[in-house]
Every structure is written in structure tokens, then in C-alpha cells.
């Protein structure tokens, strides 16, 4: 559905650039707005729209991105650097054995519906996730033995075994706090404690927030925020250029020049945990042979790929630079087509034919690159673009594929490599033990070391190829201050943004 549009978009991009040049002449530069307007409306263009607002039961970055921190809050949250900081909890303490977490709640926090936040709301919210498998993050809270409220301001979470990821899980949908017994229909409306209230959701178009005047913390810098969903990248650029957006994110790298310095827009380049993973089905021949997997990795010139994409950084192992346990693993899979051919010969796979199943909305740049890289070592790669739901069914659920390429956006998702049932079908008991040990480790640095060790094994096993970590380009318009830069895919806290108008 989207590939012809994209191809045309490229064509149009060139023409737009040409026309923009001619249009510039005779236009006086717009006066720089200076006065910060506390009641301004911030208009943000986004690409991926949530399909429902039910954040408790629907997974997906698009939903977390806009709702967490803006509308809903948890005991803790995370910064753009993925550091964990208190939110609804003013402070927290972890017992020395790592089994007891004690949170103290802020005073005077109220829900948008008027209810006051008490410890029993937190207990009720967390217990729902612990008890009901249909809630997002249920599995991550499997080790929670009890959630209790000794008094109105204190919440105690007791674990059956230490879990280094507990706080991180609490920064996501599983940790959000809802009003006990509230009957708001979460699919279409919201009742949180955040700096914004949900004003409206026009499905297929936009989501609008209003400033929560009764917010317990620092009030939001703008009166209204409208998130406009524009799935087509070129249409997003047009919207920014015709003045109907203040911010556009992400901007596709090869189109970014159209907004760089044009009409007051400036580009911000932010880090992400978006890992473009070239998955190998480790369970099927010939990919169950590590030599074949290594050969495929050596055939890929990762620096060249990043150059083709136009943004991003190389990533040679399963952990991206923003997550704990990252280390530079570039020596594991250097670009070496010569060696790749040797490895294939050793493995007796000189006339290899492989199929790459890829969701169609990713465009063709990466798969074209791979076809030619693999062709160079004598591997004939056919690309099968499929709809995302088909991908979920065939590849993700049924594991029926050879190679697949998907962007895994979630931070700290190393666990997939320790789960033999995950669609990678990578089964290495050593990695599973190291990961379990890293989770159970009380000391954060020691845990990160264990993760790094496990990640190195996964990389050296060539369980997959990590094509690159994406960079998120954001075009920020004139007068917008404080728009966040990093990790925007999973978290877009706009409470600190201000907008100056003239």
C-alpha cells in the first residue's frame, strides 16, 4: 500500500527542493517570534498512530510515546538518557537484598477526574497487571510477590527474587497509576495524573491535550498540544512547509534537507534504541549453521549501509548504546566479503538461496542494499514485503521465515535473546543463565557487566545481524523551545516545551 507513494515521494522531493529554491526569492525572512505564550497551541506532526488508547492492554510504542508522562504517570519514569527517576513517588528505597522496594508518594496529587491519589490506587493498579495476563507488562512483573500499602503515602513492592529490571518495567505501561475503581473507558478516554488531560482523539487524524491546571508538579509550558498523525513522510514535510505544524518527528533522513533551515525549522538529531535487526531463523537449515550466519554478517558493509540510510549509527551486538550492557562489538563482524565466501564454501553452501520477509512499510533501501551485498558473496536473496499483520502472524507467531528485518524499538529488550521461543529461535543456555543472573543481580553495574558478557556471546554466535541503530531527526520550528531530542519513539514528554508567538 505504501511503496508507490514512497517512490513518488522521492521524485516529489527533488521537485520540491527545486521549487523551494525558486519560491525563496522575493520572500522576506519571517520575523523571529520572541514572546513566550503560555496558552499557545503546540502542533506536533507524528507518523505512527496508536490504534486504540487502551495503554493497559495494547502494546506499541505509538501509545506510550504520547500518553506516558503527559497524561499518565507511574511511580518512576525515565529521562531521555534512559535513566530512572522518581515521578509520582517523591523517593524510593531498595532493600539491600534487592527484594523490597519502598515508595513514598507525593502529596496533593489528583486524577484528572478529581479523585485524590492514595497508596491504594497504586496497589490496585499494579495488582491488576500482576494478576491479569492480558495487561501489558504482566510477564515482567511475574516475580512480584506482593504490593501493599502500609499507609496512605507508602507503597511496598516485595519480590520473590531480585529483579534488576523492576524499576524499568515500572517506567512503562505496567507501572502507570490509575484511579481505583474508576470506570473511564480507556479505549477512547483517559483519567491520569499527568500535566495534560486528554481533550479529544479524532481517530485517523489527531490527539489533543489540554494543560492540567491542577497538576501537582511544574505546570506544562503550553496550553494545548495537538499531535497530528501523518503516515506519509512527504505529506508530513508538506504540512510543516505550509505552516500547519510547529514540530515534525521523525523526519525521514533522505527528505530532511527540505526542512533544514527552511521556514524557521531546525533539525535536531536524537539517539534512539531503535534496532534494525536482520533476524536469522536460528532453527532452520542452513541458518542453523553459525558459519552461514557469520558469512551473511561479514558480507554487510555496515558503515556503507548507515551512509545509504542517511542517519543512524552502526550496532554490531544486541544492546544499543543507550542501554546498560552496551559495548563496541564491531570487531565481531567486520566487513569482509572474502572471508564470507570462504565460510560459505566451508559450510558447503556456495549456491545459497534465501528469502527475506519484511513488513512493507519499511521501504526498499535496506533490502536492496542487502540483496546486492549478499549477491556479492554468491547468496541469492529474494525479498518478500508483507503487511505488518501478516508479518506478525507468519514470522513472529509461527516462526515461518528464513530472514526478517524489523525495527525493534523497545529499550532494554535483551531478554528476547534469552527466550528460545521468541521468533529468533536462538537457544543458548549460557546466555539464558547470564541474563537470569543479570536480572537477579542487585548491583546495577555488576548487572550491566553480566548483560555485556551475554551480549558478546550472542554477537559472536551471530544469532542475528544488527544492521544499525536509528537516529531520530526532529524538525523544530521557530519559537519552539525545550523540545526533547532523544528516545522520542517511546517517550515524548512535551510538558517542558514552550512556544513563542509574535
Amino acid at each position, binding site marked *: 500500500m505504501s511503496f508507490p507513494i514512497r517512490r513518488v515521494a522521492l521524485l516529489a522531493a527533488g521537485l520540491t527542493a527545486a521549487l523551494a529554491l525558486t519560491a525563496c526569492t522575493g520572500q522576506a525572512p519571517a520575523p523571529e517570534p520572541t514572546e513566550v505564550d503560555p496558552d499557545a497551541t503546540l502542533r506536533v506532526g507524528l507518523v505512527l498512530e496508536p490504534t486504540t488508547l487502551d495503554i493497559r492492554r495494547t502494546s506499541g510504542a505509538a501509545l506510550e510515546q504520547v500518553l506516558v508522562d503527559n497524561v499518565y504517570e507511574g511511580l518512576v519514569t525515565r529521562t531521555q538518557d534512559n535513566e530512572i527517576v522518581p515521578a509520582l513517588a517523591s523517593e524510593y528505597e531498595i532493600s539491600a537484598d534487592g527484594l523490597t522496594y519502598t515508595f513514598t508518594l507525593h502529596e496533593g496529587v489528583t486524577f484528572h477526574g478529581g479523585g485524590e491519589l492514595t497508596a491504594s490506587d497504586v496497589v490496585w493498579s499494579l495488582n491488576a497487571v500482576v494478576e491479569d495476563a492480558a495487561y501489558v507488562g504482566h510477564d515482567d512483573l511475574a516475580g512480584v510477590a506482593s504490593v501493599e500499602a502500609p499507609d496512605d503515602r507508602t507503597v511496598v513492592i516485595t519480590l520473590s527474587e531480585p529483579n534488576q529490571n523492576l524499576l524499568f518495567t515500572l517506567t512503562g505501561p505496567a507501572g502507570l497509576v490509575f484511579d481505583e475503581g474508576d470506570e473511564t473507558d480507556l479505549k477512547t478516554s483517559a483519567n491520569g495524573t499527568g500535566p495534560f488531560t486528554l481533550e479529544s482523539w479524532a481517530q485517523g487524524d489527531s490527539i489533543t491535550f489540554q494543560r492540567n491546571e491542577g497538576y501537582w508538579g511544574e505546570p506544562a509550558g503550553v496550553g494545548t498540544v495537538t499531535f497530528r498523525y501523518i503516515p506519509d513522510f512527504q505529506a508530513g514535510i508538506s504540512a510543516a512547509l505550509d505552516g500547519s505544524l510547529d514540530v515534525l518527528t521523525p523526519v525521514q533522513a533522505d527528505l530532511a534537507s527540505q526542512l533544514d533551515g527552511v521556514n524557521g525549522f531546525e533539525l535536531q538529531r536524537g539517539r534512539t534504541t531503535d534496532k534494525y535487526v536482520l533476524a536469522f531463523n536460528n532453527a532452520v537449515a542452513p541458518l542453523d549453521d553459525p558459519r552461514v550466519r557469520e558469512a551473511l554478517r561479514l558480507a554487510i558493509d555496515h558503515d556503507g549501509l548507515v551512509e545509504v540510510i542517511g542517519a543512524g549509527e552502526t550496532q554490531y551486538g544486541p544492546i544499543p548504546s543507550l542501554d546498560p550492557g552496551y559495548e563496541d562489538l564491531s570487531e565481531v563482524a567486520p566487513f569482509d566479503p572474502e572471508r564470507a565466501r570462504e565460510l560459505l564454501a566451508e559450510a558447503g553452501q556456495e549456491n545459497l538461496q534465501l528469502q527475506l520477509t519484511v513488513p512493507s512499510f519499511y521501504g526498499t533501501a535496506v533490502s536492496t542494499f542487502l540483496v546486492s551485498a549478499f549477491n556479492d558473496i554468491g547468496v541469492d536473496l529474494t525479498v518478500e514485503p508483507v503487511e505488518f*499483520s501478516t508479518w506478525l502472524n507468519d514470522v513472529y507467531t509461527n516462526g515461518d521465515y528464513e530472514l526478517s528485518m524489523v525495527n525493534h524499538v523497545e529499550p532494554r529488550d535483551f531478554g528476547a535473546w534469552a527466550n528460545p521461543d521468541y521468533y529468533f529461535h536462538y537457544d543458548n543456555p549460557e546466555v539464558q543463565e547470564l541474563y537470569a543472573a543479570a536480572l537477579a543481580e542487585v548491583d546495577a553495574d555488576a548487572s550491566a557487566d553480566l548483560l555485556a558478557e551475554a551480549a558478546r556471546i550472542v554477537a559472536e554466535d551471530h544469532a542475528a545481524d544488527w544492521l544499525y541503530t536509528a537516529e531520530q531527526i526532529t524538525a523544530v520550528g521557530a519559537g519552539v523551545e525545550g523540545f526533547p531530542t532523544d528516545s522520542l519513539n517511546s517517550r515524548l514528554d512535551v510538558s517542558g516545551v514552550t512556544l513563542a508567538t509574535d
Partner: protein
Amino acid sequence: MIRYALTRLLLLAVGLAVASAIIFLTLRVFPGDVAQMIAGTNGTPEQVARIREELGLGRPLLTQYLEWIVGVFTGDLGTSFLTGTPVTAELADKAQVTVPLGILAMLVALLVAVPFGVLSAVRRGRADGTAISVIAQGVAAVPVVWAGMMLVVVFAVSLGWLPAQGFPTSTGWSTPWLALRSLLLPALTIGVVEGAMLLRFVRSATLQAIGEDFVRTAAAKGLTRTQALLRHGLPSVGLSIVTVLGLQVAGIVVGAVVIEQVFNLPGIGRMLVSDVGARDLEKVQGELLLLTAFVLVIGFVVDLLHHAIDPRQREAE
């Protein structure tokens, strides 16, 4: 006439019944389901199974189909699996974009096709007549997506006269000018391309009319060729246009699906594309049934009109 109308009405009903069954069954053949989409890439198989059960996806197909059809007759198209909102209400909401878009596109198509089509026929063999034909041939071959992009580049981005995309959803048609403005470029895009195709029909119909005996007779009686054509020939041209226009409706519906993507319009077309992707089948089947019904009803009306206008068809009865 009444007998004819009743026969056609019966055909329409049969057509809709068959279409509903085809729509329902084809959608069930797709791999993947909405439960999987809800659970996403972090969902466990147990989670997916549970969601599937909650949504009632496991019930027998015949039960699901009958429930749907019974609902259709009471104006209830079911509830969206994803958003939990009634499909009928969503359709009504999105129709406020798509229906005016279709009507506007149709008007543009007529404005392009009729005058230029007649002109190119009358001026056949001369430079201007040939030019119109050639240009129309070229424009008709332009993909709607590309035409849309070009219009955006010129009228929205460079000149800044019209918005590049979007629809004022919060105010809707209570701010008619804003709503209309946002539909002008998309309607122009579909209308010009569809109009160029229609133009060729108008041209050949006009050429045929010029050659008809009654036009030649009129001309022989002292009218100029153009006068004769305008007074006596055009009614028969009109008849052909009505027929072709009926066929063009399907083209305009398809055009709307594409153009709503390009211009980011929250209409039925864009909703359909995203719902198919999300496997929200309850909604997709409602949308498809509505679009099918729309095209079938237009065909029905065209047939009736045709029958009413054309004396030859009446005599044949």
C-alpha cells in the same frame, strides 16, 4: 417502467447479499488478526489467545456472519475491535470528509470533461481540438498520487494558497470555508484525472452525435453545425455522460482511498487502509459494504435515469 425498476431493485438486493458474503469470507482468509496486533511484538501466545477470546474471534463463522447481517438491517454495523466505538458512528464521522470529496471531485470532472470534450469534438482536426485531445490523453494517464504531490508542491508549499494536508476535524463543517479549503486540492486532483478520462467519452459521444441524421437534418435546415449540435445533439451526449459517470463513481471511490493517504484526510478511504492493516475486520467489512452499496446504488440510479431518458429503451419495453 415500474416493472423495470422492480427488477433492477431485486438485482441490487441480490448484488448486495452476494457482496456481503464475499466481503465477509475474503476478510477471514487474510493471515493475522486484530488480537495479534493488539498484543504486538511483546505479546505472548497466551495473551493473544486471551484477547482473541475476549473479542469473540473464535466463534463459528456462520454465527459471526449472521450477527453482522442482522445488525446491518437495524443500522448497527457492530463495534470496532480496536477502539470500541460503534462502526456506524465512525463511518458517519468519516463520511463527512469522503462524501463531499467525492461530490466535489465529480463536479470538477464534469467541469473539465463536458466543455473541453465538446470543444475538442467540434474543433476536430484543428490545432486547438487536437491539443485538447492530446493533453487529455496525457492527463488521464497520470497516477492520482503523483498528480496530488505536484498540486501540493505548487499550490500549498510554493504559493501557500491552500493547506497541504489534513481536515479541520475538531470543527468539521461548522467552519465550512476551512473544511472546503482542505478538500479543494484533493478534489481537484481526483477530478482532473477522472475528468480527463471522461473527456474522451464526451468527445466520442459528441463526434457520434455530429454524425447522427437528426443533427445533419437540423444543419441542413439552416442551423450552423454548432447550433445544430447544441440544440439537438447534446441531449444524446448527456445520456452517454450519465452512463459513463456512473462507472466513474467506482474510479472516484478508488481515487479517494489513494488521495486520502496523500492528503492525510481522515476519511473512509484512509480509515479503510489502516483498518485492513490492523485487521479490525468488524470495521473493514462495514466500510467495504458501505462502499459497495454506494457504487451499486449509483449504478441502479443511472440505469433508471437512462431508462427514463432514452426513448429507444422505453419503446423496447
